[in-house]
């Protein structure tokens, strides 16, 4: 059993801390049961369940730190892991940026555990695959998809008496549907807290519809276009930009939030005034763990307020050096929006491009957060409020900073995930003007 109860986790962590002879000791234990099913070419390709639990021990002698981890929990193994951490600490050079273990904290529990998601069975996963494959087969379409779900627990403790414990669940589904002649491709993704909010049967229709409708794609000239970005299309760009919100990076002069002549841009208007971003561990439908990687409690934190930068992420060391209070770093990213759906935004668009998703996003220039990537699996031309026809995919070269200055309209936020992002995100569909497409792609 890899999901420990609070009492079992506490007993184990306290035993570990007691074994340590170091000046201080921090121990964390995390365990999970991950289930998944993968299908391609209208057939299940792999499925599995992985159970694992891991104990990490960090000790310090003065400013010398050692870390060791282990996945066996008998008394001999616990002693071994503590001794290994202590050995490493003795070998390690002094870390001038060493920060002592955190004091005892108070964590406000958040709703990260949903029983229905924890109860997903192999049969359920197989049914999801079947619900995607059957309608595709019947319509000369080909499905390839992946459902991954997890039930986890996390516990932290240290020699200063701190302790926290919480369980969490997660479920993520993606499916790509292609026409059997390979000329059309559609996609759907759902990242949910409660698996009861997910229906493969209805969601697969979105991907099937996009695949069928994208088959006769026309080529538009690359250039600047008004775009309707579905939530998944802009989430990757916004998440990528967050690396620039590191206080040290900005203060050192290597972020788009660095001020000319020194210092950072906190308090300055950097985005359109309709842009408001915040983090909240208790956000309904997007709750995350109440502490961050350092064990600091997460609080509701305004990141961008009406276009003004409100927040930079301080490590404990950098906060101390700059005379700031270190607070828990965000685990989610919530963008404030309105009530309109993606299709409402399409209706109010005279000429534009609807983007289902973006792909292979990479940094071109960190100075301006210029990113490149491509549209994929459903790109359409909009005219007079209607989707007119499918168009070939574009490569974009655009900065999310510029994108969030060119906002025309913001819709209703939806929960989205991105496999390259550490955040649970609530991102609205957006209408953006002058989005820069630099070349055409023949990829379907």
């Amino acid at each position, binding site marked *: 059993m890899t999901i420990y109860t609070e009492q079992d986790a506490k007993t184990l962590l306290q035993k570990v801390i007691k074994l340590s002879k170091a000046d201080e000791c921090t121990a*964390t234990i995390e365990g999970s049961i*991950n289930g*998944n099913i993968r299908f*391609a*070419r209208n*057939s299940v*390709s*792999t*499925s*599995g369940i992985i159970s694992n639990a*891991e104990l990490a021990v*960090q000790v310090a002698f003065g400013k010398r730190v050692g*870390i060791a*981890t282990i*996945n066996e929990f008998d008394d001999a193994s616990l002693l071994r892991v503590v001794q*290994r951490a202590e050995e*490493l600490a003795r070998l*390690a*050079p002094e*870390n001038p*940026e*060493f920060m002592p273990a955190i004091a005892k904290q108070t964590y406000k529990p958040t709703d990260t555990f949903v029983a229905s998601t924890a109860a997903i069975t192999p049969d359920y996963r197989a049914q999801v695959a079947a619900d995607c494959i059957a309608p595709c087969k019947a319509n000369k379409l*080909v499905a*390839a998809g*992946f459902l*991954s779900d997890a039930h986890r627990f996390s516990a932290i403790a240290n020699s200063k008496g701190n302790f926290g414990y919480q369980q969490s669940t997660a479920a993520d589904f993606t499916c790509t549907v*292609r026409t059997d002649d*390979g000329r059309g491709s559609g996609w759907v993704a759902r990242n949910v807290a409660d698996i009861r909010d997910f229906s493969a049967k209805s969601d697969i229709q979105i991907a099937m519809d996009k695949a069928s409708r994208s088959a006769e794609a026309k080529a538009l000239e690359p250039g600047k276009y008004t775009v309707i970005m579905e939530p998944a299309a802009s989430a990757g760009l916004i998440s990528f930009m967050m690396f620039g919100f590191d206080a040290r990076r900005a203060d*050192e*002069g*290597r972020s*788009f939030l*660095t001020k*000319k*002549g*020194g210092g950072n841009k906190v308090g300055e208007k950097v985005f359109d005034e309709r842009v408001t971003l915040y983090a909240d561990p208790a956000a309904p439908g997007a709750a995350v763990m109440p502490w961050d*990687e*350092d064990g600091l409690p997460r609080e509701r934190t305004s990141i961008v307020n009406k276009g003004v930068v409100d927040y930079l992420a301080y*490590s404990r*060391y950098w906060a101390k050096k700059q005379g700031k209070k270190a607070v828990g770093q965000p685990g989610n990213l919530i963008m404030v929006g309105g009530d309109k759906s993606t299709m409402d935004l399409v209706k109010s668009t005279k000429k534009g491009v609807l983007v289902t998703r973006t792909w*292979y*996003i*990479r*940094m*071109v*220039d*960190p*100075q*301006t957060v210029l990113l*490149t*990537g491509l549209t994929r699996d459903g790109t359409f031309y909009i005219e007079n409020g209607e989707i007119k026809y499918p168009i070939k995919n574009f*490569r974009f*070269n655009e*900065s999310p900073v510029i994108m969030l*200055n060119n906002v025309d309209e913001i819709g209703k936020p939806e929960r989205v995930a991105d496999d390259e992002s550490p955040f649970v995100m609530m991102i609205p569909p957006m209408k953006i003007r002058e989005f820069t497409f630099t*070349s055409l*792609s*023949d*990829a*379907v």
Partner: protein
Amino acid sequence: MLRREFLKMSGAGAGALMLPIYGRAVAADVLATTMDVATKKKMATVALNAATKNGASYCDVRIGRYLRQFVITREDRVENVVNTESMGTGIRVIVNGTWGFAATSDFSEDGIAKAAVQATQIAKANSKFQTEPVQLAPVKGVGDVSWKTPIVKNSMEVPLKEKVDLLMSVNGAAMKAGADYIRSTLFLVNEQKYFASTDGSYIDQDVHRIWAPMEVTVIDKATGKFRTREELGGPRGMGYEYLDTRSKGIALPGGAVVYGSAYNMIDDAVAAAKQARNKLKARSVKPGRYDLVLDPTHLWLTIHESVGHPLELDRVLGYEANYAGTSFATIDKWQSKNFKYGSDKVTLFADKVQPTTLGAVAYDDEGVKTGRWDLVKDGVLVNYQAIRDQAHILGLKESQGCCYADSWSNVQFQRMANVSLAAGKTPLSVADMIKNVENGIYIIGDGSFSIDQQRYNAQFGGQLFYEIKNGQITEQIEDVAYQIRTPEFWNACSAVCDERDYRFGGSFFDGKGQPSQVSAVSHGSSTARFDGINVINTARSLG
């Protein structure tokens, strides 16, 4: 796609409790030991017997011990030292023509037998939905054999202090040469892999890899501008001897120095600081069509994305459609025997045997002897990369030997072999190549990269860009990225330097599959010329 894990790992974790991502952390002395072969054979035999007793027509067992060491520094301090070890057994079986897989970290005979039985149970359950029974290309058992990366100095045995001292010298030299910041890292890997199968193979391999990434940053406070320059010495399948501070490197036209099988990190750090400073004042490129001269430190990544990936057979067939994507290089193009992937100067080959490469092993992760084969011959598409259960699709009698799993706990599948551009057949030096370029850009080092899901449209940046005018290198320029359509790009290849210039680049982090696995791969080439390529200017203003 190339993953960003490494950046995440070496990034913001400083000072925090960093959970090693590759398994449990161990003390340094544990890294220098190996497991006894006789014990491994005994355990593997338990698994093979349990699987066959429970209906497996085929079984393979991988007993793996994966060791990694990271030494992460910035400026004058060590941010983190992490040693990790991950050990366990992965068992793959075929029952009723269907694959099943299970893995366990339990090394008792009972634990291993149980995992073998579980693998057969999964295969049986999945066989109910089976529509295409597995066809496995035959492999002749090789009995007891062993292989080791031919290293001179085992990185795991080098004392931590020596490694820290090297990185501190590197950082100090860069700061003295004008860097404002530097991050330097040692990333050392040892995969101890034992493979046994019902074909009668018992293969023990000891694989070593090394990488020393660094990033130098310079800042102009007055303008708020900053620029970086990353290392020009790539990862290799070598021991600690690769990091040789006596190496003078190879001086290229224009003055940049690159490295072969001996990387002088200190000299490279000094050059990086100076070249990054030059970037701050370098002229911004005028967009348009240019003839590109691409150094192997750069070209490896273009080969990786535009040749290595599209010629992976599982992508071509649609198995990766939901994640990494499919491929433009469809089976009908291969069957036509006249699909011009590139110009007649272009021969691209796959291999798992070139010495010092990241892909080099004697046998792959399903016991197939590795080799070398052409993918594109004189410009024409002639082959793909396939493993045992795919070989029949290409009419092959045996697998090409490019099966790999990134740990004992993950199932092995088709991964990219080393994919390289063959050196030009007629003598040609880089200096002579540049002499004939009227309006071009010489690109050194890999930078930004992105490619679509069928591998048509790609964009690449670089580390260093030099303008070429009328056969002369004029000056360092900035803000360069080029955009390609894969077949047009390779058909625009007008010259490849000869084997004297042949060098390797590569990555530890090629990602594929769901759940995702990473793999390390090298790409060799000599400097090559591509005519009339679209170059864009990447400078922007945030107002």
